[in-house]
């Protein structure tokens, strides 16, 4: 399908300083897209009257019920599965906002609060990030996010508390609110106390290496979403954020036992 010359309906919203236009060939498609956008960005968006936008996402459907997604005029996805289509849109919208956010640096990481400081766990998908965050929350840590550490210009971490996206053995994702784990959600921005660069390895014992600030930032760069768009600001914020943090790197075993061990370890260090 070519880029439709005319979309029948549109909305423009702003989230984290990024202006996004959603346009669709039908009101129903636009409604679905807006609903997903609100979910993806935790409803942290407000509609604005503006022609000047950073990103445009277009939605069109053909006669075979295949839906097409256009990003800034280019087809980026088409699918006959509505749920899979909108899940993909959810991902790329969140990334687009995270990459172009004004005044914030989004790090792909799990985050919990402990003793007034943030424990940040940067990691790629499928490295056990959410599992570990869930265990930390079950053991009393405050939930901040299982996806993004949102840093402000002063290096403080703000909550991005979407429901935890827990996967079952068949890779199905179940959204679980932190409250269901018996946890509380953090509200206030807090400084980073520790960065854990870790991934699950059943055979591993936790014998971490303590990294310098420079080494730690370097390990965090691949997880820093705006590293290409706003490199200078990103590095400056990372530097401010982790200068006083304990940065540890190493493989870990079972998340449950590890969570207890790590909270106990940080009990004395983070106060």
């Amino acid at each position, binding site marked *: 399908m070519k880029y439709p010359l005319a979309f029948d309906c549109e909305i423009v919203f702003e989230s984290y300083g990024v202006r996004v236009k959603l346009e669709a060939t039908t009101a129903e498609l636009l409604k679905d897209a807006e609903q997903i956008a609100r979910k993806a960005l935790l409803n942290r968006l407000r509609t604005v009257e503006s022609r000047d936008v950073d990103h445009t996402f277009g939605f069109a459907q053909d006669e075979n019920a295949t839906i097409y997604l256009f990003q800034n005029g280019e087809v980026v996805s088409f699918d006959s599965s509505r749920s899979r289509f909108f899940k993909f849109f959810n991902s790329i919208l969140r990334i687009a906002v995270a990459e172009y956010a004004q005044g914030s640096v989004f790090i792909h990481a799990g985050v919990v609060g402990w003793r007034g400081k943030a424990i940040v766990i940067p990691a790629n998908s499928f490295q056990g990030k959410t599992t570990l965050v869930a265990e930390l929350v079950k053991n009393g840590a405050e939930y901040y996010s299982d996806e993004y550490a949102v840093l402000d210009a002063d290096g403080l971490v703000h909550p991005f508390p979407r429901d935890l996206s827990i996967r079952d053995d068949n890779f199905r994702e179940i959204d679980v609110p932190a409250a269901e784990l018996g946890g509380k959600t953090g509200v206030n921005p807090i400084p980073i106390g520790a960065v854990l660069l870790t991934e699950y390895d059943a055979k591993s014992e936790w014998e971490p290496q303590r990294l310098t*600030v420079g080494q730690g930032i*370097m390990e965090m760069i691949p997880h820093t979403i705006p590293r290409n768009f706003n*490199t200078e600001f990103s590095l400056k914020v990372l530097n401010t954020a982790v200068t006083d943090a304990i940065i540890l790197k190493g493989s870990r075993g079972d998340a449950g036992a590890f969570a207890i061990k790590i909270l106990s370890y940080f009990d004395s260090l983070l106060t």
Partner: protein
Amino acid sequence: MNNTQRPIARKSGLVVQEVPDEVLVYDLESNKAHCLNQSAAMIWRSCDGNNSVSEIAKLVESQAGGKVTEDFVWLAIDQLSENNLLEKQISSSFEGTSRREVIKKIGIASVIAIPVIASLVAPQSALAAASCSCNNPGSCGNVPNAGCPNTTNCNGAGLCAP
């Protein structure tokens, strides 16, 4: 060994961030991040196109307060050149000697930390780095998605997974 060369530190296309005792350099052209320890950073800063290797050795010696040999400087220049942090590539001066052997030789004699540059390539695509999301099987075969559970299948939930 050609010690009359006057290396020049590259400036364009780099973002430099000073951190405690280290310097971080992000190469916008290659998406590579480099972490220079203090010794490597001092030598890099001295590469102004006017200083020869022996002059750089003297400069660093006066700043670091310990004996700095030309081999010590070459060890840094070798790594700076390899990581494209100099305006012009300079070939290794350690003819017939491996870097490891040079490090061993310098390390025993030096009271200053030997120059070290650690490097890492960041994935170009933010989406690929942060997600195993997919919309077709082809998108799971991209190199950055190699860490996903499956690199050939985009499942019904839109994940590169079985």
